[in-house]
């Protein structure tokens, strides 16, 4: 099962086994990782599941849709080139070892 590491702003790390087909957002919610709010439940109506992807791994992540690009304008923390909505990062074997950094705030 792909492993995903969530790094909190204070540097604390949590590693989860994320089933293929499950999003990085949903896995965080189900496992009680603080720092992902996911208000709209993955409908791309909010930007409260914002994460920063480890820059070296960006090319392994699926491309951003126009909707995701648009909604990333609403992140409460600074939008960076490696900003993603974690509801759009659905686990695949290629994403095994993914590291995402949680922003200071989601709202």
């Amino acid at each position: 099962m792909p492993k995903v590491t969530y790094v909190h702003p204070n540097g604390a790390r949590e590693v989860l086994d994320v089933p293929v087909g499950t999003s990085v957002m949903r896995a965080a919610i189900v496992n009680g990782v603080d720092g992902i709010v996911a208000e709209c439940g993955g409908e791309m109506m909010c930007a409260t599941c914002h994460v920063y992807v480890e820059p070296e791994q960006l090319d392994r992540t699926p491309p951003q849709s126009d909707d995701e690009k648009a909604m990333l304008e609403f992140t409460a923390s600074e939008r960076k080139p490696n900003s993603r909505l974690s509801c759009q990062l659905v686990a695949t074997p290629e994403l095994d070892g993914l590291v995402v950094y949680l922003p200071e705030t989601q709202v």
Partner: protein
Amino acid sequence: MPAPVAAVIGAGQAGFQAAASLRDGGFAGRILLVGDEPVLPYQRPPLSKSYLAGQSRVDDLWLRPAEFYAKQQIDLVYGDPVIKIDRGQRRLRLASGIEFSWDHLVLATGAGCRLLPVPGADLDGVLALRTLSDADALRQRLNGSSEVVVVGAGFIGLEFAAVALAAGARVRIIEITHHPMGRVVSAAVSRFFTEAHTGWGAEVALGTGLARILGSGGRVTGVETTDGRRIAADLVLICVGVSPNAALARDAGLAVDNGIVVDEYLRTSDPAISAIGDCANFPTPFALTRVRLESVQNAADQGRCVADRLSGRPVPYQKVPWFWSDQGDLKLQIAGITTGHDNSVLRGNPADRNFSVFCFRGARLIGVESVNRTADHVIARRLLAGDPVLSPEQASDESYDLRAHARRLADR
């Protein structure tokens, strides 16, 4: 002095958010969250969309896992409705007889489906859709139904109609007005969705009410419309809107008028009691009248607003309203409240299934309805959060850069 107790009645999106944000925001006392449904707090929007269609599982619906509440020291009690609020003693009583005392009370009691008092409404196969158990019953029933009648063409009815059609049923929609979703969207968007559903194969009868529901042996067999037509059905969904759950508040002597009346800080007529979410009737800068909104955005933002106040950071509630609806391959996104607009312009072309309707009252932009056009929706939310200076000419000119326009306004 003992630590204060904040009690939240109702464990939907609003109640959950209030409880979570109280703890997150440093509220020092006990947090009690009481829900009447026998399950963990869950998201409602998927019930008429992905969950109904079998594309998501019940585990995907929980707002947080069970452990969250223990970890956050939120005392979650569910499946035990509150039956009485005692304002004098500041206590509340649950159906099981348990009593709790409180210092702050937050009413997040939600809304319930309106019933249609027509003959046959109690027949087997006549369903409503509000709760997880409603959705489970509907999903099970849909599997094996071939003729579906949807009574009421609002968001829920149309979302369900699209799912039922995709499941292979014959779908007829009857709507008493001439404008599906007409309470919340412009005529252009209403017409567009009517045509879309017709194009997918649903039969849409406008200006048509329900006279009675027909049955045999206790089971539904069809409906009779107000114009005397009979339509066969083995499943009838009644979705003619909701009424706010305000009985507890009314019994406690609080002001109630289309929901529980609150001020801009979401306080009821008793300042120790707040009301949030679908049940709250509140003043807003986004409409000329008080409103009561049924949406995830409103529930979550009001939950945070009340939590902030109870944690010592009072701010009036002034968040930009937004809504969405998924129907077939169409995503409708609404920013602001477009009810009461007197002028509207199109951006994009409905024939391309990619357009927005910018709604104005006088010269002022009051809301934007977008179909498969998230970029416009995002800009609209940004514009409406400030003074939305935008002319209809700019809005309708696709060569005019709205994003840059919004940036310039924000930088002013």
